[in-house]
């Protein structure tokens, strides 16, 4: 069956969706579809999936398309199911501090809406203006404030998921504490859309902090020891930082104008508490370095710049340079070793690297830019370092042609047979996001 036949079929099937033939496939990032469907109703999602599954058509799932550089080896599936028109708030009970939203809602829009109620979704992944809540959940994306608030797996209390065969399944519920049945939410968080299409999400909210600041403590280049000592002192003290994120010199230069390793310590609480902690951290910093404080709007502005510092597939790539973003997970304090290694890689592979990592949660985000082969060599070295530290490295942003040349996810875990078993049960024909996830799931 040709694309136009499929197009006709799908068009007659759906009621409230825009359907278009894709005349310019995105070969740069891939994860596109030969035809695109933008459903506005649950019924359409269900009908579309059912038909696609019956006919063994593959379906790529997207929100707003900001993660098209993340995983996947194909330029296009038969159908691209974009949830970018499936958006809006379904239920927000202010006093319960929970919200149910459609998956295509942009994170920034949600946060803006919630600000009116002095509430927030306590997730701070990069690019909130172009990432949908569904995408953030499916990719389990998080940012520096994960230290204080946790990640998507901690805040998702319920999901509505369309299975590959079109069945709509609710997982969890809309209450903040719930152990009825298996915690199926967890299966979908971070599953890269390979088990089902998340159509709705119920999330726990937090109050907006009454006051916030971010403290910057710069360190001389080669002094890993001093950073470690200082970080441990903070972790051991009474202060409760929401982030304890270390920037490498190049990222510091980009964001703060000085080429030093810099610790970004976010504080969020009532004003007296924030100032009290600033004072305590100031005393600790005095012995090793200096301290700069950004408060309230300045802090917010800083974070805004921070969240757009790294590239994603929403932006048009620069010529002659290849951008990659790698996520590394290690033990908390091993973040120091990873960032240290990045400095060496810059020289060894002739690439430029901006990197940051959380000393309280162990996750690093590393932006590598340079010529293709240099970027690939650097990725391979980063993975070696991560694995040496018992951790992992995942490439979360890279052009398609390069993704086809390397392993995005790293080695399969020993229990891969269980992951495979789950996939086969839930999506037996590999209809959804084929081969987008680890081990070709």
């Amino acid at each position: 069956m040709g694309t136009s036949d499929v197009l006709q079929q799908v068009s007659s099937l759906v009621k409230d969706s825009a359907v278009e033939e894709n005349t310019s496939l995105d070969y740069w990032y891939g994860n596109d579809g030969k035809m695109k469907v933008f459903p506005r109703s649950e019924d359409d999602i269900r009908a579309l999936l059912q038909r696609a599954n019956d006919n063994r058509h593959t379906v790529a799932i997207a929100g707003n398309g900001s993660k098209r550089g993340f995983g996947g080896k194909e330029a296009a599936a038969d159908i691209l199911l974009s949830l970018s028109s499936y958006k809006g708030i379904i239920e927000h009970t202010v006093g319960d501090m929970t919200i149910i939203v459609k998956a295509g809602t942009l994170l920034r829009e949600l946060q803006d809406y919630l600000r009116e109620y002095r509430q927030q979704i306590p997730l701070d992944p990069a690019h909130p203006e172009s990432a949908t809540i569904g995408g953030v959940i499916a990719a389990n994306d998080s940012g520096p404030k994960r230290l204080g608030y946790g990640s998507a797996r901690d805040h998702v209390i319920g999901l509505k998921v369309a299975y590959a065969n079109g069945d709509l399944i609710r997982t969890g519920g809309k209450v903040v504490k719930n152990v009825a049945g298996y915690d199926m939410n967890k299966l979908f968080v971070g599953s890269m859309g390979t088990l089902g299409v998340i159509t709705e999400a119920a999330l726990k909210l937090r109050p907006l902090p009454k006051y916030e600041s971010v403290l910057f403590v710069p360190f001389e280049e080669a002094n890993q020891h001093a950073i470690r000592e200082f970080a441990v002192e903070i972790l051991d003290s009474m202060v409760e930082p929401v982030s304890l994120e270390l920037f490498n010199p190049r990222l510091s230069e980009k964001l703060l104008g000085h080429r030093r390793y810099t610790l970004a310590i976010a504080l969020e609480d009532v004003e007296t508490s924030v100032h009290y902690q600033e004072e305590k951290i100031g005393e600790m910093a005095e012995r090793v370095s200096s301290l700069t404080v950004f408060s309230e709007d300045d802090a917010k502005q800083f974070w805004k710049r921070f969240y757009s510092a790294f590239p994603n597939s929403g932006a048009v790539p620069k010529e002659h340079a290849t951008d990659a973003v790698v996520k590394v997970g290690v033990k908390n304090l091993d973040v120091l070793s990873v960032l240290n290694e990045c400095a060496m890689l810059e020289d060894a592979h002739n690439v430029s690297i901006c990197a940051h990592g959380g000393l309280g949660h162990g996750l690093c985000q590393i932006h590598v830019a340079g010529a293709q082969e240099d970027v690939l060599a650097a990725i391979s070295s980063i993975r070696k370092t991560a694995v040496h530290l018992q951790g992992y490295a995942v490439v979360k942003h890279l052009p398609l042609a390069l993704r086809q040349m390397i392993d995005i996810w790293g080695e399969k875990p020993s229990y891969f047979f269980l992951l495979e078993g789950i996939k086969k049960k839930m999506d037996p024909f590999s209809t959804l996001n084929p081969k987008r996830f680890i081990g070709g799931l």
Partner: protein
Amino acid sequence: MFRRKKALKTEDTHIKQLADIVGPKEVLFHKEDLISYESDGFTIHSHMPKAVVFPKNTEEVAAVVKYCADHDLPFLARGAGTGLSGGAIPLNGEVIISLVKMKRLLHVDLENRQAVVEPGYVNLKLTHSISDKGYYYAPDPSSQYCCTIGGNVAENAGGAHCLKYGVTTNHILGLEVVTPAGDIIEIGREGIADVPGYDLLGLITGSEGTLGIVTKITVRILKNPEEKQTVLAYFDRVEDGSRAVSDIVSRGIVPAALEMMDKIAIEGVEAAAFPVGHPKDIEALLLIEVDGISAGIEEQIDDILDVCKKRNVRSVKVAQDEKERAKWWANRKTGFGAMGAISPDYLVQDGVIPRSTLPQVLQKINEVSQETGLRIANIFHAGDGNLHPLILFDARVPGETEKALEAGSKCLQACADAGGSITGEHGVGIEKREEMRFVFTDQEIQAQTDVREVFNPHYLLNAGKLFPSSGRCAEIKAEQKKAASE
């Protein structure tokens, strides 16, 4: 020597083989030894196990599991047996794998904020062993002085302080698991976050021992807050107390704990071992704890006192010292058991509701009490809407146990109708299998049993729990009634 001889005196090949794996002293199979393993904290139901084995390490657990799998013997894991929904009851005459002898604290890494324990390690012991260094383990089920962390993982246990810090699943960083086929797998290497792949850590936590047997656990540990303050508030109307709960949270305060007890519950705790001297004529009390940076606490306490006053509190006080605070908490944490002081039997329920529906649901529970003629006390984690209706009854009175079960089910229906859930921390077990239908469709239940099949294809591990099964459920209900009337 005598015990050894006794242990081997059996014609049962399976028991001999199991004794070969774990050692003859580590197997119980005589009827009199098995009686205490017939049920767990859900005492309404019981069934005899085939045997109880006490492995000392992961390899022994794997060997026992492998043996059972190879010989088609049903089996299940058990910790301290404090579970309240019957998850460790050997419905099918299982071989019980007791993990109480695997109770070591293996490793503490303060810098990376994690500890590794064996499943039989008691929850509170972890906090005790790291508190001198200023750290603690957050999940605090009321049974924490005796329940095991392995059991907490199986049930995804909660506790009073989960409002701010989350339940067990938010604190599990890694698991070593023996699969139902006897393979040993390690999930979440070194406690590192977001290891690529579907989140089996999150799936197995709370799976009530039906997907695998956890043999090693890496948990997150937290630093003690700089300061804690605890407030006790007495209300003349339940409604005022419940509104105060919502108001506190709406003011942007995230209390560490926000607990409520109603009049009958107060009557119980005051008659039991840890009375505080609560007035007998109040309708509700709130126990509110805030913790964090000392400089910010005063402000939050002022806010809370203000809310209480606006909601017509009769009196409200702040704990003056750790001793007073501990006294209030002992009174609360022993609340379930305290019902024994005012009723021969009681059934604990565990519904969850959206916080804002608290007044309506309490009213509904009150109606259930009137309909059935059974007194219902309410102790609950009001902050996260987790209700524990305690249905007071006398099992010696014919028919009253059934009535209590029915009242419990009706309370859960009320929670489900309010948009809530049938269990917040105790688990489904065998107790609430049927009530799963209040919150999930057949298709949604099937989606879950599909996942179970991946892990537990021969269904030898802890079968008959968690899910209603059309053919079986009627049979079990009848069985339950029979057991109850005996």
